[in-house]
């Protein structure tokens, strides 16, 4: 029998996510997947999973989960307030950005975020939702994959859940000073170290580096100063498809009529209403609105943290800077697995 987790409260928007569907752009299906796929990959590595395993994306206000079995989890991304309780015992805060062994019978209550908007929870063994089009993830816009999590959802983990949990437990246990804790203790077990996270140091301001889009040249100087000078608000109707920004309307009278062209996560469109719209991971694959900016690839994880409480500032950069940041990001991505392996000693 596989390990299961019972959802008691679904939270604001909780979905099963993985690295998404990478090969269906020609069918007009965007990749979708975790809004910050790198952070979900990291969470997976922390529990001994392959980077591609499915976990939960929690948004705004997290879910309440009841653990029927002992499972190793890791929660990465924005700092979310979360507590763990077993039976009638008083609750303890859930340590973030590291593996944590959750005992059987425990309940985790994820509450609001201290900064940011999204976090990703990986479970040893991964969530075994059915695979459709190469992924276990929910693509809400395309109505593909599992529906969003409800209070009735039971999450079934993969067969590696128990052995992997034991493996991580032994690693943490052997590294800890207190070696007297018996292996099946009801206590929460987590290492003292955690992965650093500086993504939201400027919260609630998110400074998003951008390149000029294909139709940027049609914006008058006055409009450009507004675009780069404004702290843009994120409208509550924003979703996994895109962020609707609010602020002063930009003049669109000089904007050209354009034919549908391919767009991607991070493309900033300017519809005739003059309010920029930023495409997210479940974006439409083509769009007929003028595109005024392109968010550089390295800044997409920051976009994933945009909430109605945040303020978005667009920072113009050039291609050389974009490439440099992307190279740095890739280097980090290469470094993280090695760092985790070293910390867990395998």
């Amino acid at each position, binding site marked *: 029998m596989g390990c299961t987790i019972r959802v008691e409260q679904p939270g604001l928007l909780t979905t099963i996510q993985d690295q998404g569907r990478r090969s269906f752009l*020609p069918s007009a299906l965007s990749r979708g997947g975790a809004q910050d796929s790198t952070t979900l990959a990291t969470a997976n590595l922390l529990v001994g999973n392959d980077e591609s395993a499915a976990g939960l994306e929690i948004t705004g206000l997290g879910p309440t989960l009841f653990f029927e079995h002992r499972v190793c989890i890791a929660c990465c991304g924005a700092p979310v307030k979360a507590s763990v309780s077993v039976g009638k015992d008083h609750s303890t805060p859930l340590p973030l950005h590291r593996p944590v062994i959750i005992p059987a019978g425990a309940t985790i209550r994820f509450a609001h975020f201290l900064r940011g908007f999204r976090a990703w929870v990986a479970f040893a063994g991964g969530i075994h939702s059915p695979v459709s089009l190469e992924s276990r993830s929910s693509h809400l816009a395309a109505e593909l994959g599992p529906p969003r999590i409800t209070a009735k959802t039971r999450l079934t983990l993969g067969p590696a859940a128990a052995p992997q949990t034991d493996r991580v437990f032994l690693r943490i246990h052997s590294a800890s000073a207190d070696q007297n804790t018996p292996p099946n203790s009801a206590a929460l077990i987590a290492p003292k170290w955690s992965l650093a996270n500086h993504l939201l140091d400027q919260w609630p301001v998110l400074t998003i580096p951008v390149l000029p889009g294909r139709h940027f040249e049609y914006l008058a100087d006055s409009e450009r100063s507004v675009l780069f000078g404004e702290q843009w608000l994120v409208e509550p109707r924003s979703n996994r498809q895109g962020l609707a920004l609010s602020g002063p309307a930009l003049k669109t009278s000089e904007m050209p009529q354009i034919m549908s062209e391919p767009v991607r996560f*991070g493309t900033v469109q300017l519809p005739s209403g003059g309010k920029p719209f930023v495409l997210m991971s479940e974006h439409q*694959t083509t769009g007929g609105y003028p595109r005024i900016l392109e968010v550089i690839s390295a800044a997409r994880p920051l976009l994933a943290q945009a909430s109605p409480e945040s303020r978005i500032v667009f920072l113009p950069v050039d*291609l050389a800077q974009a490439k440099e940041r992307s190279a740095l990001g890739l280097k980090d991505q290469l470094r993280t697995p090695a760092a985790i392996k070293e910390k867990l000693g395998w």
Partner: protein
Amino acid sequence: MDMSVSIVCDDMLMVDFGSHPQANLRVRALWALLQDRPMMPGVSPVAGMNCLAFMLDTELMESMDLDALALEIQGLAESSLNKSPLAGKALEIPVCYDAQFAPDLDRVARHCGLTSKEVVRLHTSGRYTAQLIGFLPGFAYMGGLDAALNVPRLDTPRPKVPAGALGITGTQCAIYPTASPGGWNLIGRCPLVLFDAAKESPCLIQLGDSVRFFSISVDEFERLWAAR
């Protein structure tokens, strides 16, 4: 003809064939060339109306040299200029044009100075080419609509268009694969599954396919719809 390759973002390049009347044919010629000579892993071509983009998935790429890639794409695009466009498959697609499925048919007819029957006759006598797959999974923009049927989009899009609805606007027609908001003029409904996630190639209509429509009765529609 004018053709340019540009770097749109640090992980996106675009070949633009400009406003040339043949631009869309050139997109499909380059697409055809790419079927024979696939790019390196992590580089996915996506067709637009008069352009073709290359999305880069840096995690899947062995090396990342945007300028070298732009040069390679420039070369491919140039050698595609004298190639013929992708010859897609020929499809015959059933559509029920009954009034219950065609909320805009009368208005389209009045706008064009035709009867509803004439609109249906013109639509079923045309041959259409899938110029672009976009908007929704499996949504094919089909060019080749008779000039007599040129109607603008609705001023206010409908919040919900049902799956299978056939819409027209400008010189194009399309079928909504799933229920979605939509601003095209609805003149019929198709009972077939346009996007099937259980299939290896999930889209019924693919880029470059040549499509004809034939009219079916309400009974036939119901029978085919039930068999979806």
